[in-house]
């Protein structure tokens, strides 16, 4: 990531991050021919024990960052699996207390699609609309709670617009109604300080590759006191205290542990730096006509800025910005032509939803990168607006809503 030879500037840290060199160095100890290897589940020899000790050390690091007990950390193959395990696992296990679930329309697909699956199984799901700034109105959430509600799933930081939900307040409301509270923290761990020993959260999903750790690795926090019970989704072998079977890669677990350890150490200074970069970016763009920040500006994770450039279509803008690695919407849906469902849920109109770009900055982003980015973005938007009939109409003072469009 550090060699800059003709490479696009990477501003897609919310999609995935490069692995930190220090993380790689730890992982390498468990890879290669002279490495420490062994199946951590092997109980009969020191290869297995050494691997197991490394796994437990990593579990401690992960727990430390978020203020959990290591026994509350279940390793998985990634945040998608963690979300699936939390939502389907909790809903299935607690089916006797009810079959109603509450989530939000701006959740990650892993949460929404898990809920859809439960709907197919006969559960009822309420999908809350967020406010225009992307945040959830606590009163609306409380109003949606029912006696048969067993689970609320709300993400901590949104992957597209970066807004931070007040999980403490939401958690308290859930506790009052004895509802299990799951939080997808794939985008917040290591970026937003948290202490699970005090937070009223029962289940929390983590990803390694969003915070400079390896892909294919995640974890689920499962609170012990009071104990949250789950039905396993992956069977065979009874690894991870029966909650997640299958041999997980020792080197990847170690990598995740090291990534979390570094994040704990550097979070405060890194956040300060990223907020400066974000301000630099916004300061360089905000005087343009018809640009809008999506999501609350202040309740926002440090490295994220999501902007709609009105009357410019997002995909053509990405194409014009080929020297920047950025995304419109989330990476998981960017192969489709749909406008971002997150922005639609905020009530953004079609043009704005189609014209959004997510800039996500991280550990290796420099002030010079942002300078270059501002230059590229300004010229690309100008070029495309010159090409845009909608821009013409806006300039001519025509209200686009007054036109009867022939949708195809």
């Amino acid at each position, binding site marked *: 990531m550090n060699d800059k030879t003709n490479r696009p500037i990477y501003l897609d840290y919310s999609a995935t991050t490069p692995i930190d060199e220090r993380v790689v160095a730890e992982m390498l100890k468990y890879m290669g021919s002279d490495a420490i290897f062994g199946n951590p589940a092997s109980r009969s020899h020191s290869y297995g024990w050494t691997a197991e000790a490394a796994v437990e050390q990593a579990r401690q690091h992960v727990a430390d960052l978020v203020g959990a007990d290591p026994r509350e950390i279940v390793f998985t193959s990634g945040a998608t699996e963690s979300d699936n395990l939390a939502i389907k696992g909790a809903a299935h296990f607690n089916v006797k207390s009810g079959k109603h679930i509450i989530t939000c329309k701006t959740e990650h697909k892993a949460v929404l699609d898990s809920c859809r699956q439960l709907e197919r199984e006969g559960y009822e799901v309420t999908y809350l609309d967020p406010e225009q700034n992307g945040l959830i109105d606590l009163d609306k959430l409380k109003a949606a709670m029912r006696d048969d509600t067993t689970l609320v799933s709300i993400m901590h930081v949104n992957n597209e617009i970066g807004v931070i939900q007040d999980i403490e307040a939401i958690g308290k409301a859930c506790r009052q109604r004895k509802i299990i509270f799951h939080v997808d923290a794939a985008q917040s761990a290591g970026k937003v300080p948290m202490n699970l020993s005090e937070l009223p959260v029962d289940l929390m999903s983590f990803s390694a590759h969003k915070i400079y750790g390896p892909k294919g690795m995640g974890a689920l926090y499962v609170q012990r006191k009071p104990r949250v019970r789950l039905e396993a989704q992956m069977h065979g072998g009874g690894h991870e205290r029966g909650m997640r079977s299958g041999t997980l890669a020792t080197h990847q677990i170690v990598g995740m542990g090291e990534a979390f350890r570094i994040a704990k150490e550097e979070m405060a200074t890194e956040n300060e730096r990223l907020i400066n970069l974000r301000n630099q970016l916004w300061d360089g763009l905000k005087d343009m006509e018809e640009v809008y920040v999506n999501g609350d500006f202040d309740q926002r994770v440090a490295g994220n800025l999501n902007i709609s450039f009105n*009357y*410019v*279509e*997002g*995909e*053509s803008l990405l*194409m014009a910005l080929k020297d920047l690695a950025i995304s419109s919407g989330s990476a998981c849906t960017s*192969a489709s*032509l749909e*406008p971002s469902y997150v922005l639609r849920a905020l009530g953004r*109109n*079609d*043009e704005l939803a*189609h014209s959004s770009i997510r800039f996500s900055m991280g550990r290796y982003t420099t002030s010079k990168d942002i300078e270059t980015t501002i230059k590229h973005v300004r010229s690309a938007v100008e070029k495309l607006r*010159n*090409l*845009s*009939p*909608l*821009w*013409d109409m806006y300039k001519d003072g025509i209200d*686009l809503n007054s036109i009867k*469009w*022939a*949708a*195809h």
Partner: protein
Amino acid sequence: MAYGEKVLDHYENPRNVGKFDQNDANIGTGMVGAPACGDVMRLQIKVNDEGVIEDAVFKTYGCGSAIASSSLLTEWVKGKTLDEAKAIKNTDLAEELALPPVKIHCSVLAEDAINAAVEDYRKKHA
């Protein structure tokens, strides 16, 4: 997805970008698509007394393939009669630009645009 070379060429150097006076009797205007769908194409033709398209301009809000389809179309219609222009098929555009299946609708939109422009012109002269 990776774009074809011809798409990139038209996208980087779009031909005949511009706007004619919509109310001019010699101008036919076709505006198709919708912001909701992520693309809006405006194609305008200038027709001479012999019924031949003398000039054509476009502006497009949409992805690179939509921009390329309309840019290519303006090149193709120049010098054609209205009937000849109407005979241009989306498949010809798609083939020339090597559009992938998910982008075929862009060429359909371009075909709609030329048809709409010709209709507009004919309406004015009916």
